[in-house]
């Protein structure tokens, strides 16, 4: 029996049906009606929720409306990693509702409420997404928020029904009293629950009661809108009267605006204005053409005649930087870690290798080039963006517009990829959009402005994964034991510091905390701050380069010992190391102990292995490669075992690991190269990313774990390139120490 007209609250109907139901039920709700119709598949931001959706708001993360619809507020960006669904899964678990019934909306900018709970433990109080932290942070925060909401709704139900709260249960989104058989949806109780005090210390569900956490059949909430073109990204936004800005940047980086002849651009019908935005320490100079549509703005941009002033402008050059770094690593750097005393030669009967690894600048190259929609008004500013780093972006827009940060309202949209790019420490492209809007306003242009970078602007926008040189001297004793590891890393910092003694943890991760046991370890950092190429974290950050250097050298050492590379690794790991579990699992998957089937005559086939812990997640991979007579090669299969603690969404973990592997495979072939201040790459023809024909078959296995969950967006990346390169060495004896490798191995 039911005492409510909302007994269908817990059904699996999608969210739009819910809103339509609410329209039928409350015909007076005109606001709700308008919003529902206008919803499309744009993510609705928290500030835009209809009033009745926020009627029960026990904390920053959970809302329940009068129809019982649960809204989860995400302080994180959905950029493909599945975070919205992960958050909904945690909330659905505690509230005992269906995951598919939950609406996820992005938070407003509010660092005090929505700071990243993992970062804050590292002394970094900012609202943002990155470092594979969302599920690790939400595991406590979101579950507690949802459990608190549930406790309050149950307390309200107990009052309404005048029964002991202890006997009430929740089944599929309905409060249920087994003694009377009464049931009613949460919506019935929100009005009263909203008046109750918020309890503290509410316990979350015990793991044995998990219903949706770990359920392979849970589907991503964002998928339906992403298969029919209705998902809305920044690029898709159009406001009434909006202008599109396409930007000219100098070919020679950091060149200043000399003279601009905009007459041809302004003569194009539809071009409204040309604005100049001189560069500053953070962003390059730009000249923007504002027009009614993207094509006209682009044509206008191409019609600009600009004399760029290069006098006294730095001319960063990849080869010069690499040469300088190689020299630096021969000298003395800042000691980051020192344990025991590293050796400078091999003991009798032992071996020493000194290896230098060169890795280039890399561009993130998400499919959606950087863009930002901004509407600057007298009393404030609205910004629509794949908003990954609220705190920095809000501050940058405030600075560029002269507004108080509280007047800068950020609206998060789906991001067409990011891989770190949209969390820029300098808020570079957001800042550029704000500076364009401010300059346009001075010319009397008050329209909303959508700044869109062309692919070439994105590729040449710098903010790259840093170019690095690693120099490692590793020593084996006569018994083949690794006894000394002396590691220099040269590279730039994302956020340069004036403190010459500051150890850059992001540059040295996976080095200072080397997984393998070695009695004598020294790590030195070389961290020049005078290179005019701003750099930025990229998916898996320091592990993108340190993983390659460490895991390929370990393989080389195993070969010197004539030892199996798996056995060599296992012998150097502490008995409790979680690397062991993933290594053994991946070896089983790949049939490591049995020979690999041979290929066509003339080809050579081999396996390579690598393991890496990053962001608290342990990943081991085995790559199978075929090398052809012309020294070209294919990556045929990759096996991957992952230990990321408790698995919240198994299906999503698997796809994220596949994604990381695809990202890591691109490292074999891509580089951004600067020559005398000019970036040589521009688009996908000269900055290749993995395509379908390069994607190996990938098998992913998840380690069953009861440890708290850790991230999965990044940790798939680091082992891939070293596993492939180790396989190529096993096939040919050719050791690759410089990336990119290109399409073919170079015989020694």
């Amino acid at each position, binding site marked *: 029996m039911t005492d409510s007209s909302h007994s269908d609250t817990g059904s699996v109907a999608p969210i739009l049906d819910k809103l339509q139901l609410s329209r039928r039920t409350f015909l007076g709700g005109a606001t709700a009606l308008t919003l529902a119709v206008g919803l499309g598949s744009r993510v609705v931001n928290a500030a835009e929720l209809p009033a009745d959706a926020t009627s029960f708001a026990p904390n920053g993360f959970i809302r329940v409306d009068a129809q019982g619809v649960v809204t989860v507020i995400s302080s994180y960006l959905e950029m493909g990693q599945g975070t919205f669904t992960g958050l909904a899964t945690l909330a659905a678990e505690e509230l005992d509702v269906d995951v598919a019934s939950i609406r996820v909306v992005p938070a407003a900018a509010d660092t005090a409420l929505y700071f990243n709970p993992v970062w804050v433990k590292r002394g970094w109080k900012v609202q943002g997404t990155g470092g594979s932290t969302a599920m690790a942070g939400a595991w406590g925060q979101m579950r507690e928020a949802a459990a608190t909401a549930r406790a309050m709704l149950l307390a309200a139900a107990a009052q309404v029904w005048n029964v002991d709260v202890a006997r009430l249960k929740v089944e599929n989104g309905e409060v249920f009293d087994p003694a009377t058989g009464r049931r009613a949806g949460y919506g019935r109780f929100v009005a009263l629950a909203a008046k109750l005090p918020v309890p503290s210390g509410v316990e979350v569900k015990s793991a044995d009661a998990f219903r949706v956490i770990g359920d392979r059949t849970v589907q991503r909430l964002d998928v339906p809108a992403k298969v029919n073109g209705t998902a809305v990204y920044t690029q898709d936004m159009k406001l009434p009267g909006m202008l599109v800005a396409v930007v000219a940047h100098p070919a020679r980086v950091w060149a200043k605006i000399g003279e601009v002849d905009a007459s041809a651009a302004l003569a194009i019908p539809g071009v409204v204005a040309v604005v100049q935005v001189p560069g500053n320490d953070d962003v390059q100079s730009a000249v923007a053409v504002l027009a009614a549509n993207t094509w006209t703005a682009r044509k206008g941009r191409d019609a600009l005649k600009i004399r760029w002033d290069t006098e006294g402008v730095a001319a960063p050059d990849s080869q010069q930087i690499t040469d300088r770094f190689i020299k630096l690593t021969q000298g003395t750097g800042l000691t980051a870690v020192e344990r025991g005393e590293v050796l400078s030669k091999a003991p009798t009967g032992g071996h020493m290798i000194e290896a230098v690894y060169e890795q280039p600048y890399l561009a993130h190259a998400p499919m959606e080039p950087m863009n930002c929609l901004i509407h600057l008004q007298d009393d404030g500013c609205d910004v629509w963006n794949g908003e990954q780093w609220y705190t920095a972006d809000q501050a940058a827009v405030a600075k560029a517009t002269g507004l108080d940060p509280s007047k800068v309202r950020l609206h998060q949209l789906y991001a067409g990829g990011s891989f770190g790019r949209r969390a820029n420490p300098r808020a570079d492209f957001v800042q550029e959009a704000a500076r364009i809007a401010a300059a346009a306003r001075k010319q009397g242009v008050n329209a909303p402005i959508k700044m869109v970078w062309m692919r070439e602007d994105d590729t040449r926008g710098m903010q790259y994964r840093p170019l690095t040189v690693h120099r490692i001297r590793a020593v084996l004793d006569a018994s083949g034991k690794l006894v000394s590891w002396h590691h220099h890393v040269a590279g730039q910092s994302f956020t340069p510091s004036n403190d010459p003694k500051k150890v850059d943890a992001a540059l040295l991760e996976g080095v200072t905390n080397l997984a393998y046991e070695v009695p004598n370890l020294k790590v030195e950092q070389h961290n020049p701050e005078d290179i005019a190429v701003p750099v930025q974290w990229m998916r898996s950050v320091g592990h993108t380069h340190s993983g390659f250097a460490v895991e390929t050298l370990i393989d080389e050492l195993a070969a010197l010992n004539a030892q199996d590379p798996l056995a060599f690794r296992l012998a150097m790991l502490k008995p409790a190391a979680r690397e062991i579990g993933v290594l053994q699992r991946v070896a089983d998957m790949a049939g490591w102990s049995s020979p690999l089937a041979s290929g066509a005559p003339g080809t050579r086939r081999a396996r390579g292995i690598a393991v890496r812990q990053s962001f608290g997640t342990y990943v081991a991979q085995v790559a199978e490669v075929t090398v052809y007579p012309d020294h070209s090669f294919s990556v045929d299969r990759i096996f991957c075992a992952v230990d990321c603690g408790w698995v919240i969404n198994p299906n999503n973990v698997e*796809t994220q690991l596949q994604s990381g592997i*695809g990202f890591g495979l691109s490292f074999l072939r891509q580089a951004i190269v600067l020559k005398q201040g000019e970036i040589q790459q521009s688009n996908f023809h000269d900055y290749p990313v993995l395509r379908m024909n390069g994607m190996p078959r990938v098998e992913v296995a998840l380690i069953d774990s009861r440890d708290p969950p850790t991230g999965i967006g990044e940790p798939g990346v680091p082992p891939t390139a070293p596993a492939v390169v180790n396989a190529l060495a096993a096939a040919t004896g050719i050791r690759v120490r410089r990336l990119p490798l290109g399409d073919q191995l170079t015989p020694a």
Partner: protein
Amino acid sequence: MLELKINSQVHQFSGDPEMPLLWYLRDELAMTGTKFGCGLALCGACTVHVDGVPTRSCMTPVSVVAGREVTTIEAAERVRVGQALQAAWVAEQVPQCGYCQSGQIMSAMALLVAKPGPTDADIDSAMSGNICRCATYQRIRSAIHKAAQVLSA
């Protein structure tokens, strides 16, 4: 004045005939399912069909498609092969960021029309013009096979 037929609807176009179809679709017709990725026909995010042939709309001037039949992702669900692919994309949980997926589905539609039972090699050759930076390729492959099976049943 050009006459354009997009998803069976006729539009009169009087703007710049050099405007790529992509920008007309997105900026003028608000059909934003077709995406901008590279502007040089290198990534496939802008793939539409022109008389059934998969075409990169970012490099195709509006004037070229006058009098021809343009189909975009917005109309994919009107045909059986589009429905099957979209259902398979959901079943295999293909999209991550999702930005490239309209173009992927449009390329896959053309493939299945030409080759109802594609091999992996057929898929590689038909789909390698469409970049997915999230590297959802393995699931795209599975979803195409799945849709092919459903369509042949």
